[in-house]
C-alpha cells in the first residue's frame, strides 16, 4: 500500500519487537548521525578546546579571580534556590493535588509559564517589578547579587512541582488513613509515609532545577547588570570570553559547567532508577 512497505505478508513473524530490523537500523544510523553532528561532536569540541591549552591553561582560565568568583556565585545561588524549590515546589504540588478551590486550574497554568516564557522576557518582567525606579513595589534589586537568586527562582520554578505532582497524585489516601486510624498524628504521617514516597521525585526535580540554574543566562542579562565580583555568573563569563575572542577560556569555563551538568545527569539517572525499582 505504501512505498516503504518493506515486508508485506510476513505473517507468522513472531520476532520480539526488540530486534533491530533493517528499517530501524537505518533509522538508528540517521538519528545518531544527526545527534552526533548537533550535540556530541560540538560538545567534544568544547572539551577538546579546553584541553588544547594544556592543564595549565585550563587551570589558569578557571581560577582567574573574576571567573572563580562567577563560578562560585553561580553554584551557590543554584544550590540555595534549589533548596528553596524543594520546599516551595513540594508545597505547591501539595496544594495543587490535595487542595480544592476555585481558580486552581489557573495556578496549573502559572506553574508552566516560566518553562515556556523566553528567558529574556523573564528578565525583562522581573526587572519591571523588582528592579526599576518606577517599580510598583518600590524594590530595586537590579545589578545586585540578589537579582541572581530572583532570576533563578523564576526559571527553575516548575521542576520540583512537576516531578512531585504525579507521585502525589498516585499516592493512595488509604495508606495515610490506615496510619491515622492506628493513631499516627499528622506530623508522623507526613514524615513517615508521605515524605519517603516523595523523596525520589523531589531529588529528581532538585537536580533538574540545579542544572538549569547553573547554566542560566538569558534572564540575567538585563536584570543582574553582570557586575564582576558582584552579580556576574559563569555563563556570562563564558559569553564575555567568546566576545573577547578567547575560545580557550570560554571552553574551559564551559567544561567546568559541563562536568557539573554531567554529574547532575548521572545523579538524576541513579535517582530515577531507584524510583523505578521501588515502583
Amino acid at each position, binding site marked *: 500500500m505504501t512505498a516503504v512497505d518493506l515486508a508485506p505478508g510476513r505473517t507468522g513473524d513472531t520476532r520480539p519487537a526488540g530486534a533491530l530490523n533493517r528499517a530501524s537500523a537505518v533509522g538508528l544510523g540517521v*538519528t545518531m548521525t544527526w545527534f552526533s553532528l548537533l550535540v556530541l561532536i560540538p*560538545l567534544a569540541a568544547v572539551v577538546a578546546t579546553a584541553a588544547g591549552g594544556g592543564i595549565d591553561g585550563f587551570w589558569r582560565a578557571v581560577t582567574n579571580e573574576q571567573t572563580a568568583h562567577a563560578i562560585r556565585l553561580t553554584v551557590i545561588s543554584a544550590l540555595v534556590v534549589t533548596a528553596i524549590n524543594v520546599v516551595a515546589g513540594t508545597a505547591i504540588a501539595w*496544594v495543587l493535588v490535595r487542595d480544592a478551590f476555585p481558580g486552581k486550574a489557573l495556578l496549573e497554568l502559572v506553574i508552566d509559564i516560566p518553562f515556556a516564557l523566553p528567558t529574556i522576557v523573564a528578565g*525583562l518582567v522581573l526587572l519591571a517589578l523588582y528592579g526599576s525606579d518606577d517599580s510598583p513595589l518600590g524594590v530595586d534589586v537590579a545589578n545586585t547579587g540578589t537579582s541572581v537568586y530572583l532570576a533563578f527562582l523564576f526559571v527553575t520554578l516548575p521542576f520540583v512541582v512537576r516531578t512531585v505532582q504525579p507521585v502525589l497524585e498516585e499516592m493512595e*489516601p488509604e495508606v495515610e488513613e490506615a496510619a491515622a486510624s492506628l493513631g499516627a498524628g499528622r506530623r508522623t*504521617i507526613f514524615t513517615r509515609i508521605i515524605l519517603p514516597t516523595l523523596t525520589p521525585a523531589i531529588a529528581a526535580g532538585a537536580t533538574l532545577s540545579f542544572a*538549569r540554574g547553573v547554566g542560566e543566562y538569558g534572564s540575567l542579562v538585563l536584570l543582574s547588570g553582570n557586575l564582576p565580583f558582584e552579580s556576574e555568573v559563569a555563563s556570562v563569563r563564558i559569553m564575555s570570553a567568546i566576545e573577547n575572542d578567547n575560545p580557550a577560556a570560554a571552553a574551559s569555563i564551559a567544561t567546568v559547567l559541563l562536568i557539573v551538568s554531567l554529574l547532575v545527569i548521572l545523579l538524576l539517572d541513579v535517582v530515577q532508577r531507584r524510583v523505578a525499582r521501588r515502583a
Partner: protein
Amino acid sequence: MPETRTAHRSRGPVAHLLRFAVIAYLFLLVVWPVSLVVTHTFENGFDALRTVFGDADTVAVLRLTAIAALIATAINTVFGVGISLLLVRSDFPGKRIVSSLMDLPLAISPVVVGLSLVLVYGGTNGWFGPVLEAGGVKIIFATPGIVMATAFVALPLVIREVVPVLQEIGTEQEQAARSLGAGPWQTFRRITLPSIRWAVVYGVVLTLARSLGEFGAVKVVSGNISGQTRTATLAVEEKYLNWEQESAYAIAFLLAGVSVLCIIAVSILRARADRN
C-alpha cells in the same frame, strides 16, 4: 484520635495557610511580573505594537524567528519520534547511554550550546566550518546556525513526551498488526502514530514555544545582524539597551503571548484527553 482519620481531607488552618502562601508566592514571582509586560506594552494604547509592525527591520526579525523556530521544531519532531521509537521498541548496544544523553541538552547552558556549535561550524577556526564554507555552506552567523542552536536546546522536549506513552501502550496491538501482515511503515502509521498522537502534539507545542524564545545559544551563533540574523529575543535585549523600551516590551509581549497560548493549548488538550 478519631479526628485525624481524614487528616489530609480536612481544611484546617494549616491547609488554608499553605494555600494562601502558595498563591502569594506564585503571584509575586510569576503573575505580577508577567502581567507587567502587558501593562507596559499598552501604556500608550496600540502605539508600541504599531511601531513594531511598522518597522521593516523588526518585521524581518519576527519573520526570521518564526521560520527558524518552525524548521527546528520540524527537525526535532521527526528526530524525537524516531529516537523515541528506537529507544522503546528496539535493542541496540549502548541504548542506556543514548537514552541518558538525550536529556543532556536540558542540563547545558545555552551559552555553552552556542559555543560548542561555533567551535565546530565556525567559518574561520571551526572543525568543519572552513570546509563547509569553501563548499558554500555558511552555518555560523547565518540561519542554519540559528536553527541548529534552537534544535539543540529544545531536543529533549518531544522525546520526553513520547517515550512514556510508547512504554505505556505496549506492543500488543503492533504485534497483532504485524502478524496480520502489516509492514513496519503501515504498522507505524495505522497503529503506533494514532496512539502517540497527543504526546507528539504536546511535544511539538512545547518545542515551538521553547524555539521561539531561545536566546543565549542563538546570541552566540547568530552574530545578531539586524535584518539578517537577529531574532526576536535578541531584539528585545537590543531595544531595551538602546532606550527603546516601548518596542522592547512590545516584542516581549508578542513572545510572551505566543508562549502563554502554547501552554494554554497544551493544558486544554491534556484536559480533553484525560476526560476521554
